[in-house]
C-alpha cells in the first residue's frame, strides 16, 4: 500500500523529469541561437572596425599586400584574400568546422564571409570565430538539468515530509482515535482541530456520525432495559394467577398439567427477560464493583448449587482444581460459571460425567456430546436453534460479554466426542 502523500510525489517527480528532459533540447537550441547571433554580431562589428580603421591607414599597395599577408599569418580568425573585380563575394554567414591541430579536436566556427574594398581594390574578408561545439553545449545543459532535477526531487522529499508532519498530523491523530474507538465503551471522542478545510470537515462529519451512533446505541440499550422492566409486572401477574389457579377446588389432573406447562413456559419467558436485562446491565457497566476472589472456591460453590440438577440426569460433576486468585466482580463470575455448568449439564449426554479442570490460567468445562456445535454462531444472541425449547439463547452471549469485559478469553472446541469450553483468565 502506498501512502497518500507518496502518490503525488511520484507523479510530480515523473512530471518534473519529463519537463526537464524536454527542456534540454530547448535550452540547447536557445543557447546555441543566442550564441550564434551574438557571434554574428561580433563578426559584423569586427568587419566594420576593420573597414573603418583600414581606411585611416594610408599605405602603398605593395606595402598593403605585405601587411595583409603578415596579418593573415598572425591573426588566425581573420583572413584577407585579394579578389578580381569579377569575382566579388556576396556577404554570407555560415558555420564551419575545422580540425584543430593543437587541441586535437574538431572546432566549430561561425564565419562571416564578405568583400571589403581597400583603396578601391576588392578583398575577400573571412572572419571566423570559435563557437562552443554542439555536443559540449548539449552535455553542459544536460548536466545542469540533471543537477536541478536532483535538487527538485530532494526538495520534494523534504517538503513531503514536512507537509506530512505538520498538515497531516491532525488526520493521523483522528485516525488513531477512530482505531481506538469502541461504541460499547461509551467513550467521548475528542478530535483535534485543524486549519485545513478538508480535515475540519472530516472531523465534523465523524463527530456527528459518532454522536448519532452512540445515541442510537444507547437508546437501543435503554429500550431493551425498559422493555425488560415493563415485562416483569405482567409476568408477575401471570405467575401469581397460575398459583391461584392451582388452588382451585375443582383442580383435576388435566388442569394441573396445563398449569404446569404454563408455569414452565412462564419460567422460560422470565429467564429470557432476566438474561436480556442482565446483558443490558453488563453492557452498561452496571457491575463495577470488583473484589479479590478465588476461582476454585467460586467453581466449588457453583458445582454445589448444581449437583442436584446434574444427578437428576445421572451426571457426575468431577473437579480437578487448584487455587487461583482473581480480581473481578463476583456476581458476574458466578453468572459465568453458572452458565457454563448448566450448559454442560443441559446439553451433555445422560449418565456421562461433566469434567471441570484447571490448567495454569485455564478453566475447562467438558461434557460428552454427539456432534460439534457451530462455533461461529455459538456466542451470538438468539442464534442457536429454538428447537431446544428450554434455551434462552443468551447464556453464551452473556458469558462472552463477561469474558470480554474482564479481558478473559473464552473458546470452544470439540475433541473426541467432548464439547470443551475453556476460559483463559
Amino acid at each position, binding site marked *: 500500500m502506498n501512502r497518500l502523500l507518496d502518490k503525488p510525489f511520484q507523479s510530480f517527480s515523473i512530471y518534473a523529469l519529463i519537463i526537464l528532459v524536454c527542456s534540454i533540447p530547448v535550452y540547447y537550441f536557445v543557447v546555441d541561437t543566442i550564441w550564434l547571433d551574438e557571434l554574428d554580431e561580433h563578426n559584423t562589428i569586427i568587419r566594420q572596425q576593420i573597414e573603418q580603421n583600414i581606411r585611416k591607414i594610408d599605405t602603398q599597395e605593395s606595402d598593403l599586400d605585405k601587411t595583409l599577408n603578415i596579418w593573415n599569418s598572425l591573426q588566425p580568425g581573420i583572413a584577407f584574400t585579394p579578389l578580381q573585380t569579377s569575382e566579388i563575394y556576396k556577404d554570407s554567414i555560415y558555420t564551419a568546422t575545422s580540425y584543430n591541430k593543437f587541441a586535437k579536436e574538431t572546432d566549430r566556427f561561425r564565419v562571416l564571409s564578405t568583400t571589403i574594398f581597400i583603396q578601391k581594390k576588392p578583398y575577400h574578408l573571412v572572419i571566423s570565430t570559435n563557437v562552443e561545439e554542439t555536443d559540449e553545449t548539449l552535455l553542459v545543459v544536460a548536466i545542469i538539468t540533471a543537477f536541478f532535477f536532483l535538487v527538485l526531487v530532494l526538495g520534494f522529499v523534504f517538503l513531503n515530509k514536512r507537509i506530512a508532519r505538520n498538515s497531516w498530523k491532525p488526520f493521523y491523530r483522528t485516525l488513531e482515535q477512530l482505531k481506538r474507538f469502541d461504541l460499547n465503551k461509551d467513550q467521548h471522542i475528542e478530535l483535534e482541530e485543524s486549519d485545513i478545510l478538508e480535515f475540519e470537515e472530516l472531523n465534523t462529519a465523524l463527530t456527528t456520525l459518532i454522536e448519532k451512533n452512540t445515541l442510537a446505541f444507547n437508546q437501543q440499550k435503554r429500550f431493551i432495559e425498559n422493555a425488560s*422492566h415493563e415485562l*416483569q*409486572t405482567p*409476568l*408477575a*401477574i*401471570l*405467575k*401469581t*394467577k*397460575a*398459583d*391461584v389457579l*392451582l*388452588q382451585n377446588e375443582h*383442580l*383435576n*389432573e388435566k388442569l*394441573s*398439567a396445563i*398449569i*404446569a406447562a404454563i*408455569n*414452565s413456559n*412462564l*419460567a422460560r419467558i*422470565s*429467564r429470557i427477560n*432476566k438474561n436480556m*436485562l442482565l446483558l443490558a446491565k453488563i453492557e452498561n457497566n*452496571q*457491575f463495577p464493583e470488583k473484589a479479590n476472589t478465588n476461582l476454585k472456591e467460586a467453581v466449588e460453590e457453583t458445582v454445589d*448449587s*448444581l449437583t*442436584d*440438577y446434574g*444427578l*437428576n440426569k445421572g451426571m457426575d460433576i468431577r473437579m480437578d482444581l487448584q487455587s487461583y486468585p482473581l480480581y473481578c466482580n463476583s*456476581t458476574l463470575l458466578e453468572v459465568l460459571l*453458572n*452458565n457454563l455448568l*448448566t450448559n454442560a449439564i*443441559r446439553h451433555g449426554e445422560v449418565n456421562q460425567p461433566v469434567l471441570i479442570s484447571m490448567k495454569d490460567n485455564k478453566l475447562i468445562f467438558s461434557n460428552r456430546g454427539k456432534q460439534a456445535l457451530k462455533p461461529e454462531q455459538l456466542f451470538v444472541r438468539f442464534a442457536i436453534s429454538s428447537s431446544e425449547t*428450554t*434455551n434462552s439463547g443468551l*447464556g453464551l452471549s452473556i458469558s462472552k460479554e463477561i469474558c470480554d469485559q474482564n479481558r478473559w478469553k473464552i473458546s470452544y472446541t470439540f475433541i473426541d466426542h467432548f464439547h470443551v469450553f475453556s476460559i483463559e483468565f
Partner: protein
Amino acid sequence: MKILIIEDEHELAQDMADYLSGQDYLCEIAADFNQASNKIIFYEYDCILLDLMLPFGNGLQLLELLKAEKRMDGVIIISAKNALEDKIKGLQIGADDYLAKPFHLSELTARIYSVIRRKQFDNSNIVTHEELTVDLLSKTVTVGSNLVPLTKKEFDLLLLFLGNKNKVISRNALAEHLSGDIADMLDNHDFVYAHVKNLKKKLTGAGCTNYLKTVYGTGYKWEL
C-alpha cells in the same frame, strides 16, 4: 396477623391478598404512595410488602419513614427492577427481605412467614406444628423426641410447606425456592422430586403423620 400490601398493580395486589387470606393473614392494600404512608402512620402491621416504584413516590421513602418512626414492622421489598443497588440500599435502610418480580405466591408466603417468625420469636425461634417441632436457629427438626436429620434443602422445603399450609405448590415454585436465581437457568425441575421424596420418607420414618401430598403429579401440598 396483619399484612399491608403496597402495590400499584391491582390484579397482583388482589391475588396476593386472596392467597394470603387463606393463610390466616389479614390483608390491606395500598395502591399508591399517599395511601401507603397514611396507613403506615395510623396502623401497625406484622409485615409490609413494599413495591419500590409507586405512583406519587418511591418505596424507599416509606422505608425511611418507618425507620424514623422506629417501627418494628417487618418489611419485604418487592421490586420489578431487581437492581443490586436497590436491594442493598433497601436492606440497609431496614427492610428484612427482598423479592424480585416475578415470584411465586408460595415463595412470598414463605418469606412473610420467616420474617414474622424472626420478628416475633427473637430468642427461641421455635415453630411447632402438631407433633413437629422446628428450631429455626439451630435448623433442627424433631418429631416428639426423635431428631429428624434433614439436609439443608430438605429443611428449606419443610419451611416452605409450613408457610403454605393447605396450598398446592408447583414443582416450579419449589425449584425456585431451592435454587434461587439459578432455577431460571435449569431446563427441568425434576430434581425437586428427589428432595420431596426424601423429606417425606424421613418425616414419616420419625413417626410424623404424612401431611405431604402429591397433587396430580405436578404439585405438592402440606395438608392438614
